[in-house]
């Protein structure tokens, strides 16, 4: 008897045997090879027994929207990289190459879902209507966040790798409890017939490097134990700064899900249609109470990890060339043109929109105001705190000591201005 025949537990696991689970098992129970792909690098649309039906839901306008989003976010990426090179940003984290993974998954989420990103999810942010200029606050050093997650259900970027994964599971556990509380209230007040809140799920992003962190493991244990409505979305972009995926794992990352007791699925992360289909399937499944899914988007980070590293030190240009041939934008453009769903005018407009976005981001970045350190005093605690109050009072007194100096500087500056004006007049 092989290891596969050993019982996983002495407990009765019949509650796991729902139809969707069986479907997932049939389709996904085997090691996650081959990966799900619908739109090939040559722009032709293939088929899949489970996921084609999701692709068939996509109307031409939605497909053009996917392209427009991917193009916009790539243009944004170029602009932000340039801003960093010009000293306007302290650091930038490029996403080029991962547009399909992010736009495809982000567009599969619904407003009531909550998203926990890592720090490269600019494309997902776009799909959640986060103002992209706000994203740059963190990288310009004027904020550790920059937007209010409550506005878009898109959480703040997290720099401690994988720290957001248990947050996502906890949030999902909160959704479960809210649903129970709402049901109890509806029954209690006899309002069962009233329109219920739309069911929600959580999606959490992390990379192949972060998959080695203990928090990912703990999160998956919790998610599985409580059947939390959470989708783990791993972008395997092949490099954790300079270390290849082979150092993080010897098996496809999607296969790890099996060990936790939920489906894992590898999808072509450069195929926006397949990513969207798989994510929609996983989120629907989670919202309906069937528990977590791990999606491994098999993709590639074409550029540097951040503007601080140099990929030529750790990988060959041939490898980059291979992946450039799988470019997510090129393949969707081929498909849209071949099917007559988009013409030159559309692509010209997309380019123009990208340039407009870039100009907006450039201008807004220059205008981002440096905060007063008093806001940091104010936000360390929610409630009054005597040490913070004492240190703020000291800071105010200390700062006030420079008031005379500042006034003198201003008077001198004003005088210089007058002198110059006088000179011009003469």
């Amino acid at each position, binding site marked *: 008897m092989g290891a596969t025949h050993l019982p996983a537990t002495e407990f009765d696991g019949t509650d796991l045997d729902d139809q969707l689970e069986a479907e997932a098992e049939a389709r996904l129970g085997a090691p996650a090879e081959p990966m799900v792909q619908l739109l090939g690098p040559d722009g032709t649309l293939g088929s899949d027994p489970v996921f084609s039906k999701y692709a068939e839901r996509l109307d031409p306008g939605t497909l053009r929207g996917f392209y427009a989003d991917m193009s916009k976010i790539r243009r944004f990426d170029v602009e932000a990289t340039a801003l960093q090179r010009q000293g306007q940003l302290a650091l930038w984290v490029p996403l080029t190459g991962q547009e399909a993974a992010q736009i495809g998954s982000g567009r599969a989420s619904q407003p009531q879902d909550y998203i926990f990103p890592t720090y490269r999810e600019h494309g997902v942010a776009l799909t959640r209507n986060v103002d992209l200029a706000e994203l740059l606050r963190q990288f310009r050093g004027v904020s*550790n966040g920059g937007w209010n997650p409550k506005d878009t259900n898109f959480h703040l970027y997290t720099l*401690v790798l994988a*720290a957001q994964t*248990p947050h996502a599971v906890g*949030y999902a556990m*909160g959704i479960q409890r*809210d649903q*129970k509380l709402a049901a109890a209230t509806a029954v209690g007040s006899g309002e069962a017939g009233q329109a219920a809140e739309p069911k929600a799920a959580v999606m959490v992003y992390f990379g192949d490097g972060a998959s080695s962190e203990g928090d990912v493991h703990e999160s998956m*244990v919790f998610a599985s134990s409580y059947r939390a409505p959470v989708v783990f979305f791993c972008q395997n972009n092949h490099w954790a700064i300079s270390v290849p995926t082979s150092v993080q794992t010897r098996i496809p990352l999607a296969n790890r899900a099996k060990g936790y007791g939920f489906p894992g699925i590898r999808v072509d992360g450069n195929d926006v249609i397949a990513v969207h289909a798989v994510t929609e399937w996983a989120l629907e499944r989670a919202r309906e109470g069937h528990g977590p899914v791990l999606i491994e988007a098999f993709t590639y980070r074409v550029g540097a990890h951040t503007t601080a590293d140099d990929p030529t030190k750790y990988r060959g240009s041939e490898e980059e060339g291979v992946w450039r041939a799988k470019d997510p934008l090129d393949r969707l453009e081929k498909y849209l043109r071949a099917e007559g769903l988009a013409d030159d005018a559309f692509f010209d407009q997309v380019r123009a929109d990208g340039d407009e976005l870039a100009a907006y981001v450039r201008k807004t970045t220059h205008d981002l105001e440096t905060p007063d350190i008093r806001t940091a005093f104010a936000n360390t605690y929610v409630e009054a705190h005597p040490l913070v109050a004492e240190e703020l009072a000291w800071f105010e007194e200390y700062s006030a000591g420079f008031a005379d100096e500042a006034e003198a500087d201003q008077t001198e500056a004003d005088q210089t201005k007058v002198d110059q004006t006088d000179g011009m007049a003469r």
Partner: protein
Amino acid sequence: MTTMTIAKAINEGLRATLANNPRSLLMGEDIGALGGVYRVTDGLIGEFGADRVVDTPLAESGIIGTAIGLSLRGFQPVCEIQFDGFVFPGFNQITTQLAKMHSRSNGNLTVPVVVRIPYGGGIGSIEHHSESPEALFAHTAGLRIITPSNPHDAYWMIQQAVECQDPVIVFEPKRRYWLKGEVDTEAPGASADPFKAHVLREGIDATVVVYGPLVPVALAAAEAAAEDGRSVEVIDLRSISPIDFDTVTDSVRKTGRLIVAHEAPTFGGIGGEIAARVSERAFHSLEAPVIRVGGFHMPYPVAKVEEDYLPDIDRILEALDRALAY
């Protein structure tokens, strides 16, 4: 007014919280059917169910991390860490995430998570079951840290910790779990600020500042000193972050001498912080250097020698002698 142990008082405090606040919940290892290894959550799962009293997987980072997620969804989790030395797998989540979420979100998010940690030695236990790591957390801005020393405070402070909108770590003196005392469940004490120190005994010759497990030790030392004609003021700090320096410095201005005692090692500890602040604030009132009584700079020693490690009545009296010799 009823008499109960500290463990029971926390149990009753948690029961009141769960009953009054439908969005509060407990999380931790073995806190359900077993009632926690110290039985602090005894009986609660039967009353409130497994969604409110959650037996978690054995994973401290997971406990704290999921509690943060629950709090982002509007819940108020109370996490139990089984023993002091086991908090470190959750240290990352506490210090890099829990402490900073409000600040890094520019005040948009609050994470009112409570973390309960039974701490301190004196129970004859094995490695990692007797540590006092409070200074490591007190150094992190964004956290509040309290430690009750009697059943009345234990009953109220746990409830106040849950109500507080900031994350609060409650260090529970585990060797005092069975200490009995009166609890007034309807007292004006309900409104006592959990972040204020209490003067437990008034005196004029010296001040002894303590918290948590050493409070009864300091009171006994003060009693012994009184027999020698020395009048010692004893302050129960109650809150380690923030520290109520006003109460401490007011006392020092009166007595002129200060001894700070805790079980944690003195180097880099809370005692050093108090000594420094008091010398800044009340230097001219001091008639002797501030003297620290605490653990040595070593990992918590094996149980058979812990009596040599832990501050006791004699070590506080020795410090008092030194202070009075100036």
